């Protein structure tokens, strides 16, 4: 089993010199020999950095990269038996097609052994001969369908042709692993689809391992044997395209791969879950009363125009998409996206049904915002996430009040000085307000993720200090919007670390 693993990443972290957060965090990944693996994620998720570490262009801050069991973490790129197809091709413009492809062969030294006079085996190195280079280059050109292009200048080739030269230049060296960094990103849609199939074909013919980076989920589903979904420097899920599509591990994966309806639900009984105002049979088992995230794919929802089912709603919108219609169905406040090949009338009451095994239930990643490192300051405000919020510290002790000196006084007239007391801060998603009015904001941040949850958006706001606020919002925001975060005094829940008696004075 272990012999099949060609590449292994063990606890790999990367932090860039000019930043104080991890670009890639604790990556563990095993790649089997001959596999087509895709690193998939939105821009800035660390997928390219991961690929560059495998290629040797970045050195991991910590962790190991093992190739065939040997640690190659510190080897420079020219000592690794891997080749890369770069995003913008990176062809040598001063060389023609032939010389570009022959570049790697010309610098290569092949070891061979001969017996010296004493009969000992000595390893010597030789260059490839002209004929050998010629054969290999021609073979590579044939592989990428560019026969008779060898004499052309690379500047006069189209984008697709340059792409092929870049692939030929890499595969001619017979690497153990071919790394591809969004190689099709600069091509137009039709060309891209063609190249996807060709690359897959090439992977089969060559039999070498491909590691492919893309942000295009469709591309990943089309080509890969195995997909690694990444977000925020971390691996979210590893699995085959079908696994990832049918059984996403969390809301992010579900949202990123394909279209999906994501809701918040509650387990009400064994294999019974409540969402969209109804109780559904399901196949996953969670603790009763646990809050869960639910994903239903639009094509898995069945519409009954006679509205005989229990879950009723109104079709409000219909879009013709070629192979199917896309409907929006309002069930209470919740929006449900449905895909169906049947043409229904809109603005009519219908009922919907979903097979139990098509309801994907996921553990909720977050239930509330918790900050472990808060503390109370001199003015009885609470400081967390590097910002100072007004709060009500009397909640720490029942029946207490604050005297004129700013100390907390208990029912028994004991006085506590809570300056610098460490607290755990808890704020519900619903209790945070975000707004685009940045003046007199306590703290501002970037919106890094938005997921539609049926009747509201779950928005993650990240501050400059890498603190996250998870907010439920009814309004539409855009990723990368800068917003201010406000929390009402009464909504900040505090829990003292340790016992209050140690603050008594």
């Amino acid at each position, binding site marked *: 089993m272990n012999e099949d693993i060609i590449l292994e990443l063990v606890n790999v972290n990367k932090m860039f010199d000019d930043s104080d957060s991890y670009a890639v965090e604790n990556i563990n990944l095993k790649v089997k020999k001959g596999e087509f693996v895709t690193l998939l994620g939105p821009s800035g998720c660390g997928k390219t950095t991961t690929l560059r570490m495998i290629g040797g262009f970045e050195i991991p801050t910590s962790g190991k990269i093992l190739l065939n069991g040997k640690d190659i973490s510190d080897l420079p790129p*020219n000592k690794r038996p891997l*080749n890369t197809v770069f995003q913008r091709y990176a*062809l*040598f413009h001063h060389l023609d097609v032939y010389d570009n492809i022959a570049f*790697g062969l010309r610098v290569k030294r092949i070891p061979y052994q001969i017996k010296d006079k004493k009969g000992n085996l000595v390893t010597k190195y030789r260059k490839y001969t002209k004929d050998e280079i010629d054969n290999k280059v021609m073979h590579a050109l044939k592989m990428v369908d560019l026969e008779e292009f060898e004499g052309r200048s690379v500047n006069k080739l189209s984008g697709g042709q340059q792409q092929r030269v870049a692939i030929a*230049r890499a595969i001619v060296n017979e690497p153990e692993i071919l790394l591809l960094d969004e190689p099709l990103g600069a091509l137009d849609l039709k060309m891209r689809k063609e190249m996807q199939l060709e690359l897959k074909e090439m992977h089969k013919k060559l039999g070498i391992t491909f590691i492919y980076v893309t942000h295009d989920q469709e591309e990943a589903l089309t080509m890969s044997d195995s997909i690694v979904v990444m977000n925020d420097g971390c691996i979210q899920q590893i699995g085959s395209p079908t696994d990832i599509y049918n059984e996403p591990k969390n809301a992010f994966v579900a949202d990123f791969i394909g279209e999906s309806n994501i809701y918040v639900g509650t387990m009400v009984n064994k294999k019974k879950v409540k969402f969209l105002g109804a109780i559904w049979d399901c196949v996953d088992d969670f603790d009763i009363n646990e809050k869960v995230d639910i994903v239903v794919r639009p094509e898995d929802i069945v519409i009954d125009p006679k509205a005989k089912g229990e879950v009723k709603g109104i079709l409000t919108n219909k879009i013709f998409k070629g192979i199917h219609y896309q409907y929006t169905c309002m069930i209470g406040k919740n929006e449900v996206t449905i895909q169906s090949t049947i043409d229904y009338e809109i603005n009519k009451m219908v009922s919907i049904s979903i097979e139990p095994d098509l309801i994907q239930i996921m553990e909720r990643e977050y239930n509330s915002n918790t900050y472990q490192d808060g503390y109370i300051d001199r003015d009885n405000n609470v400081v967390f996430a590097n910002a100072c919020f007004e709060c009500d510290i009397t909640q720490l002790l029942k029946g207490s009040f604050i005297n004129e000196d700013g100390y907390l006084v208990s029912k028994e007239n004991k006085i506590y000085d809570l300056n610098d007391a460490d607290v755990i801060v808890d704020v519900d998603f619903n209790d945070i307000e975000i707004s685009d009015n940045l003046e007199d904001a306590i703290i501002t941040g970037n919106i890094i993720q938005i997921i539609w949850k049926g009747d509201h958006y779950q928005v993650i706001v990240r501050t400059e200090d890498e603190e996250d606020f998870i907010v439920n919002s009814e309004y539409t925001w855009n990723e990368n919007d800068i917003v201010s975060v406000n929390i009402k005094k009464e909504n900040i829940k505090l829990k003292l670390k340790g016992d209050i008696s140690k603050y008594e004075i």
Partner: protein
Amino acid sequence: MKFKRKFLAIPYVIFLVGFVIIPVLFIFYYAFTNKAGQFSFENVEKFFSDETNINVLLISLVYAIFNTLICLLLGYPIAYILANKKYNRSPILYMLFIMPTWINFVIRTSATRDLLNWIGISTGSMSSITTMIGLVYNYLPFVILPLYTTMLKIDTYQLEASYDLGANKSTTLFKVLIPMTLPGIISAATMVFMPTLSSYVISDILSEFNVVLFGSYIDLYFNQANWNFGSFMAFIMLCLILVSVLISRKSEKGNEGGSVL
């Protein structure tokens, strides 16, 4: 009369005719006439019959070639470091290398002389060395400037691609970086080579007139009011410059951009 866009060229055309074309014609006229104003090859004969003249020309060429090479060898790595964000994050360092050109040329050269004498490199006894130092010091910014602009535009992925394909650092330097920056190297070389041929202030000041470059030789004859012979030498220099321009044009073919000239 309607204003046309080409009228904007008039001031420059006047300048070009008055200060470039007519003076060049004057050089031609003086070079091939004698003092009496008659057409003759007297100057050609005089120039090639005296060994001193040829020697001065050869020495000037040697100084110009060495100056170009030394400036390129020093300036290339400096420009690479300046243009690389990894090593140089502020434009101040770049300014420091360009700043000498802001100081008056004659003052700067005199100061160089005093400085060299003070540290023990005598302008009298080691005049060829001091001249070389002065030339390199003076022309280095003109090498860094075009190389820096070329290097700013380098596609670093091409360097990475070279490492990726198995090339080590020196192979990458000679097979990728230098070919990529060739246009910058050529314009840097032309910016040093041609002016060195005709420079004379530096050699005069820094060698106490021990090193006579072609420029000072021409100056000598002009000062003696021998316009004809001086002009003929200026004509030779014009030919040399023409040749070097043609060479650089040829090697620049196929490479786009990067040139300052």
